[in-house]
């Protein structure tokens, strides 16, 4: 399986290198042929169903093992919800729903949601890339039971479009919309944890790119008669970025070994805290060392920093997971700290 994954990683890098550029990110709409071509190439290689069970036509590589793929996709700044689709399809497949073809996006936040006669009504919030697909996975809780709801013909009134992000996100109001399939969510799945893992891996991929951009820019940009990278003040700031990034990667690497259902909540919390904290510092430093050019739309840094800003807030920010970790330790056991940690 490791070999299989390595081949997939290599193929993916090649596809993304060929298709993704900063121009493509300026026009993330369905009508953009380049977006469509890229998606078709991705789908042809089976990437959306990489973690889907074989019986549903997937590679059945466990979700925690494909985090390197998520990193690569976001290291290239791919303006398509491949990461979201991979997670959605995985959750569908684990809940015994055959994932549809095409892009699948997800939603966990809803308001006034009602389900009757296999139809759904209410507000569905903060859906990434809703403009590119009709397929939506909703994670819903009803009478203390969690459900996976698949909609394959989403349709409704857009009530809010979030603008400050690089990736499109929408709130939508739906009324009496047909449900394609509804099943109990696999009880080993806590979507908030999986989402936190997904965003951590995405952030690390993006932070690697931001570090590379900063190194390259500072090595080329001349001021006061020498490259910025020759100033110790700049060197130290960039080294701070590298330290933050390596800590996040180390935290995430603990997760790639896990299986669904392992008692891995702490590792996931740590990963999201570490990546979120690192992102805050890396956003600030990368913009500082880039100067004004980094603040333009034309230069690609901002695509990555905008996404970092949103991902660090998704599925619980640092404070949320710090509370979570602290509570588990303080309330749920009487061990002293070292016994608990080691």
């Amino acid at each position, binding site marked *: 399986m490791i070999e299989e994954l390595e081949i997939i990683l290599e193929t993916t890098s090649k596809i993304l290198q060929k298709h993704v550029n900063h121009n493509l990110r300026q026009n993330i709409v369905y009508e953009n042929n380049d977006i469509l071509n890229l998606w078709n190439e991705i789908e042809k290689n089976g990437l959306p169903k990489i973690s889907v069970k074989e019986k549903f036509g997937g590679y059945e590589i466990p979700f925690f093992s494909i985090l390197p793929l998520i990193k690569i996709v976001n290291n290239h700044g791919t303006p398509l919800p491949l990461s979201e689709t991979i997670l959605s399809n995985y959750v569908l497949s684990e809940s015994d729903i055959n994932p549809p073809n095409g892009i699948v996006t997800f939603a966990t936040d809803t308001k006034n949601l009602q389900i009757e006669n296999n139809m759904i009504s209410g507000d569905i919030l903060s859906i990434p890339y809703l403009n590119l697909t009709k397929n939506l996975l909703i994670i819903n809780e009803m009478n203390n039971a969690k459900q996976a709801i698949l909609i394959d013909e989403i349709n409704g009134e857009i009530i809010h479009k979030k603008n400050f992000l690089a990736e499109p996100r929408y709130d939508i109001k739906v009324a009496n919309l047909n449900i394609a399939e509804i099943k109990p969510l696999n009880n080993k799945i806590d979507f908030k944890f999986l989402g936190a893992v997904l965003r951590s891996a995405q952030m690390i991929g993006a932070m690697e790119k931001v570090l590379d951009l900063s190194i390259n820019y500072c090595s080329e940009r001349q001021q006061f008669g020498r490259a910025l990278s020759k100033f110790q003040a700049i060197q130290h700031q960039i080294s701070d970025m590298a330290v933050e990034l390596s800590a996040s990667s180390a*935290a995430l690497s603990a997760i790639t070994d896990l299986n669904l259902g392992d008692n891995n909540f702490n590792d996931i919390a740590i990963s999201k805290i570490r990546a979120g904290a690192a992102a805050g510092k890396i956003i600030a430093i990368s913009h500082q060392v880039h100067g004004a050019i980094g603040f333009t739309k034309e230069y690609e840094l901002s695509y990555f920093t905008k996404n970092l800003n949103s991902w660090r807030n998704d599925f619980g920010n640092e404070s949320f997971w710090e509370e979570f970790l602290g509570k588990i330790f*303080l*309330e749920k056991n009487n061990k002293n700290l070292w016994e608990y940690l080691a």
Partner: protein
Amino acid sequence: MSKFNFPFIKETNELSNLRKEVREFITTCINNNEFTPSPDAWVFSADPSFSKKLGSKGWLGMSFPKEYGGHQRTALERYVVTEELLSSGAPVAAHWIADRQSGSQILRYGNEKQKSSIIPRITAGECFFAIGMSEPDSGSDLASVKTKATKTENGWKLEGRKIWSTGAHLAHYMIVLARTSPASEKNRHEGLSQFLVDLSLPNVKITGIADMTGQRHFNETLFDNVELSDDTLLGEEGKGWKQVVGELALERSGPERFLSHFTLLDSFINEFRNSLIHSGTKLVGKLISEIQTLRRMSFSVASMLQYGESPETQAAFVKELGNKFEKMMIETLREFSNIVPLHEWPNQLQNLFEDATLRIPSNSLRGGTTEIMKGIIARQLGLR
């Protein structure tokens, strides 16, 4: 990007069992009043009889070969033992440097006589070392050392001063970095050599220096034309720089870079557990996430050392992040004094806190400053 990788290394059952064994041993020692847990114990708290006891348990020189009295265990096993000792504030300062770096340095570069005469004693907890790098005029700029070793008929004559050598007053040996030929104009790193110096030799004068806490662990060591025999040269003449860089990787990557004040955190949580449940869960969660990340990184470096890699840069990452964490930890505890004022903390905890506050500036100086760590990382990134 591979240069920043810290692959995840899982703790096996064997390692967990070893951990348990060490922990039980420590608990027994504490119950028998053999030591009182203390902060920064690997620098400040030396107890040769405790070191000897660890030696007899087989927990010193763990990875050294059996033919020299070692135990041929892995760097990961050593890691587990050191973590347990550090987190409990055990008095490990006497043997710390010998076990951490000097022994490995001798095994790597030493001749047969050096190895067979010294390594078994390190492993037994009977032979202690001090570091001979810094000098009054050479701190961060280590290549500028002026201590000089001149070839004589029977060996070498050593002349110069080393400073900030922790524990030199208790140590039997110091590995001294000295100039054996002038630096070439192009490369200051040439012409340096390492010497294995017996500190009981005539004309070696060790003077203690009180640090700002009032304690004496630092020393200045004067080598006033000390006669050294031929076989005191460690490794190759002129290759001292390369050797010393490897030694620093051993020095910088271990858990002492983030567990120096763990006893403070442990006592703090035990004392204030109930208040923390109400108003400190976030604070505790933040500390947990940082410690666990650092443990993974440091454990990962131990595994690199085990496989014979040279993780000098990764060691700098661990040290830099570990130093930051310890400072952050003390600030975090300080913030908590808003909830329970400092003067209401139990005396012992107040003492630990004040001690840590006093000592913390040294953590990003010893073993290489923050600025040097950042410089090493920047070089790896291609910026220098």
